[in-house]
């Protein structure tokens, strides 16, 4: 097995921790090298989740970039931006986990913005309603977020722009490729009937609704081209 195959097998749960370490030993690589390789594969969050001993489905024992308090506010925010109704929402998709993973990597430049915005939002909730944002009722949260979105919450600096940023990232977290930590169990794709980025479609499927359950990646392994 190549390192890529070993890492993929582990992340996809086809290999347990002990087998993973043994396979790495056979390849003569350290776990650290394998994990930096996972980072190159584009799944840093999943890799970190895996090292922490938690399942590789994207669920994390603790947030990576945000503090637990900040993460709690973000989860509550995400749950109202993309609410759970009779269908799954941001909570089931793991959208807040997606954002946290992104803030620990490619979106690190947004981390100070999140820190400040989440803290200010929580303080505003406490000072006006007397409870932390996450403790408010859905209706109270919605009313507060409507004000935030409309730019009426001056206690949150750049509140309107902050709301749009979080909204954009939460939507990414619902519909992203699952290796980024969101769209858990492909709930986002199921919601909209997206079959996943398929390898391609043959004649019977072209210009028809594809009534197939979504899959994250399919198709034959890519051929190699090097110049």
């Amino acid at each position: 097995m190549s390192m890529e195959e070993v890492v993929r097998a582990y992340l996809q749960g086809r290999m347990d921790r002990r087998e993973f370490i043994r396979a790495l030993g056979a390849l003569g690589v350290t776990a650290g090298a394998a994990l930096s390789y996972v980072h190159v594969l584009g799944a840093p969050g999943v890799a970190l989740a895996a090292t922490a001993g938690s399942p590789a489905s994207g669920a994390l024992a603790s947030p990576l970039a945000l503090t637990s308090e900040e993460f709690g506010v973000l989860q509550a925010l995400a749950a109202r931006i993309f609410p759970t109704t009779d269908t799954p929402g941001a909570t089931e998709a793991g959208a807040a986990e997606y954002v946290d993973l992104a803030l620990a990597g490619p979106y690190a430049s947004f981390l100070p913005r999140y820190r400040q915005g989440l803290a200010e939002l929580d303080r505003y909730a406490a000072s006006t309603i007397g409870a932390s944002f996450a403790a408010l009722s859905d209706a109270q949260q919605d009313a507060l977020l409507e004000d935030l979105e409309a730019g009426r919450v001056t206690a949150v600096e750049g509140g309107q722009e902050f709301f749009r940023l979080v909204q954009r990232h939460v939507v990414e977290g619902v519909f992203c490729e699952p290796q980024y930590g969101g769209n858990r169990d492909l709930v986002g794709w199921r919601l909209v009937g997206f079959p996943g980025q398929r390898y391609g479609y043959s004649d019977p499927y072209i210009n028809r609704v594809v009534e197939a359950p979504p899959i994250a990646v399919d198709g034959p392994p890519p051929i190699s081209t090097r110049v």
Partner: protein
Amino acid sequence: MRADPVADVCLIGVGAVGGILAKELGSAGLQVVAFERGPAVTLEDYAARDAIKWVTRVALHEWVRHEPITYRSQPDQRATPRYTTSPTNSVGGAILHWTAQAARFLPADFKVFTNEIASGLAERAGADITGHEVSDWPIGYDDLEPYYERFEWELGVSGRGGDNPFGGPRRRGFPMPPLRAGAKSQLFEAACRRLGYHPFVNPSGINSQAYRPPAPYDTRIPERPACVYCGHCNNYGCHVNAKAATLYSVIPVAVATGNVDLRTNSKVVRISTDDAGRATVVTYFDPEGQIHE
């Protein structure tokens, strides 16, 4: 500063144009040094079907955040950094992830001044062209027609010749029939016909069938497969290499001539000229950060 040997031709950038020129010049027996500031890439690097990577985070353009390019539209403006809409930074360039709309210019496009300014059309339409310079091209459609044809037959363009009622004359049709029309295109086409318009299929730089250029075109270019209709073109490299791109068509041929020295991760920072204004020396950073002339 290290002094490198002399070449017949230096190319700066190995993308759509640089890739084609490298093949032509190398095939003519000239010694070519081709600089590319980005790396060589493989299919695994550009063709994962991953919207977060390629579309949301625009990974192909990510480099520009670390190394912004500056831009100005007038000589007296101050050039400022741009962080978006940058070219790809790798061998193969932006044509690797283009949308592959491959229409030729119309004959009228070459004569904008004659058709729209000198004719009084812009004035009658009330267009304010203050501060804009408008002129005809020094060449016309007929001058370019043979080269359009070569591009279409060497890189592979699918379409139906003569469909566009405003299109210029063509010596030859397209090497491949059009791609299948999508459901939206079919609706749009039917609506246009009802309104009395003449919809036509836009030529596309995507193989509608497996394709290898026949003689008299360059038969050294390898065969590439047909489109699999995955639905993800723009911003993505093509995971079956069905899209017309120089990376896997003309660039390998250029390298195989043995006359093209392709230097990746080599960024040219200065072009020096002689007294006559001819470019004679380029200065570049090699992958280790050494500066060469």
